[in-house]
């Protein structure tokens, strides 16, 4: 196994650029309207402009730019998913991450500090081993660590075999890591704006106009905007939008919670996930512990979740990392994610011509940002699903060809 990766520890972040984006004049019509200026929407706009020269694009955002899940996630990046389809798109994404800062020209704190996923029982080991071998055959970097090796990567791990759910092994993806969410969104936004994409904040879509099965544009609080093509990129709110266009999607919106501690001296150089005891944690650049909790079990658009989920998670964290027992919980929050029955995304065409869907990323949306944007832009530009998205169609729910990522893959973060 390789050792822990070089970290960049800066309590103080470098400064954002002096200029980020224009406040553009809204046009009457666009070639492409993207609904949702989150990470995926912004990345899609960027790749439409960059890869296809399509710049007559508006990204409509009902609130403030990247203020949805992009502002709320735990920023874990990895590609070690179980199924070939997932491996394909997440690995494509990871490869894009690896050059993204340079390409976009914006610091994003992309840090390949490794992602370790713990296994806590014989069955858990079996599942994680399958994941490990699946990654191997898909040429995705992965290592299998014994508990002792895991402790070398993260010395604060409790690998005692007397704890309630002892650590029995771990997978480790050295190329995995974290990035800084706001910086990623702003990087894409600035780059898209530079190429002429209009970023329209405070613009809420209230209707999608469809004539003869073909999309014509969107109704908004700022009036009707015509468009040749409309692309949905509004995680959590997708089903509300598809309803406007007259079709249903098998998505449920759930609250996914996360939390941070106060700033702490560096104790953890890697990302650690444990599905079995519901912990995933990294220590961000400034020093705070960033942890994700589970999704609440019921539909919600409130961006607030149950405190019992947080308590359960902190209890598990104290078990795995005794040193965390004195850390302070500083802030908790929730994001609204949409989840498909197989915990995999829905990306591609829809029953409405020239209307496209990108949704259902559940808890995996952040890490997919570049890959999803790339593939989605391609799908929109060519009006045909990109090769990496062909199995992510809505049709799979009819044929039964599901891509079930919540079974053996364990926690889907």
């Amino acid at each position, binding site marked *: 196994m390789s050792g822990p990766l070089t970290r960049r520890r800066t309590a103080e972040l470098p400064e954002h650029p002096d200029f980020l984006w224009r406040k553009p004049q809204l046009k009457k019509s666009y070639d492409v309207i993207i609904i949702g200026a989150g990470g995926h929407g912004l990345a899609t706009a960027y790749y439409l402009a960059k890869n296809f020269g399509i710049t007559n694009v508006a990204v409509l955002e009902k609130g403030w730019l990247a203020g949805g899940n992009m502002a709320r996630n735990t920023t874990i990046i990895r590609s070690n998913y179980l199924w070939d389809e997932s491996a394909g798109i997440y690995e494509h994404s990871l490869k894009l991450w690896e050059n993204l800062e340079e390409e976009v020209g914006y610091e994003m704190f992309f840090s390949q500090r490794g992602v370790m996923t713990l296994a806590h029982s014989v069955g858990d080991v079996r599942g994680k081993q399958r994941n490990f071998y699946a990654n191997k055959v898909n040429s995705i970097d992965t290592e299998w660590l014994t508990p002792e090796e895991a402790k070398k990567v993260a010395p604060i791990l409790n690998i005692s075999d007397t704890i309630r759910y002892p650590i029995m092994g771990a997978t480790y993806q050295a190329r995995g890591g974290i990035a800084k969410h706001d910086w990623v969104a702003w990087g894409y936004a600035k780059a898209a704006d530079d190429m002429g994409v209009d970023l329209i904040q405070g613009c809420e879509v209230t209707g999608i106009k469809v004539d003869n099965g073909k999309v014509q544009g969107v109704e908004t609080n700022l009036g009707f905007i015509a468009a040749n093509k409309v692309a949905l990129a509004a995680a959590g709110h997708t089903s509300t939008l598809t309803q406007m266009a007259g079709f249903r999607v098998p998505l449920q*919106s759930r609250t996914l919670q996360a939390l941070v501690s106060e700033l702490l001296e560096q104790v953890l150089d890697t990302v650690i996930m444990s599905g079995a005891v519901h912990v995933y944690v990294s220590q961000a650049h400034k020093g705070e512990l960033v942890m994700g909790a589970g999704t609440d079990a019921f539909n919600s*658009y409130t961006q607030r979740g*149950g405190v019992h989920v947080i308590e359960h998670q902190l209890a598990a964290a104290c078990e795995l990392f005794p040193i965390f027992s004195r850390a302070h919980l500083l802030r908790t929050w929730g994001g609204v994610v949409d989840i498909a029955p197989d915990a995999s995304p829905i990306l591609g065409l829809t029953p409405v011509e020239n209307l496209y869907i990108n949704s259902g990323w559940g808890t995996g949306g952040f890490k997919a940002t570049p890959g999803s944007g790339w593939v989605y832009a391609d799908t929109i530009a060519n009006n045909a699903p990109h090769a990496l998205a062909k199995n992510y169609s809505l049709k799979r729910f009819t044929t039964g060809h599901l891509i079930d990522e919540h079974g053996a893959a364990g926690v889907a973060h």
Partner: protein
Amino acid sequence: MLSINCPWCGARDETEFHYGSQAHVAYPENPETLSDEAWAHYIFFRDNPKGWFQERWVHTAGCRRWFNVWRNTVSHQFGPSYKPFTPAPARP
């Protein structure tokens, strides 16, 4: 931590319940006669509204009964709970 009103036991913590998604989705009468699309809609497609929603919960750790309830997915406010196969109360 929601407090959910079980029609039999009264208000209890969310942790005593399991969620059952949209209410009033009946098992199709003759599944064999359904198209694949219609069957897929029965298995996988559920409403996901912003606002008031008729949904199912089961009081797993208590009386183990399924029931329906109005809940607002934007405010977490609850409307009335009601027993299965009883007429649904009006939207709050």
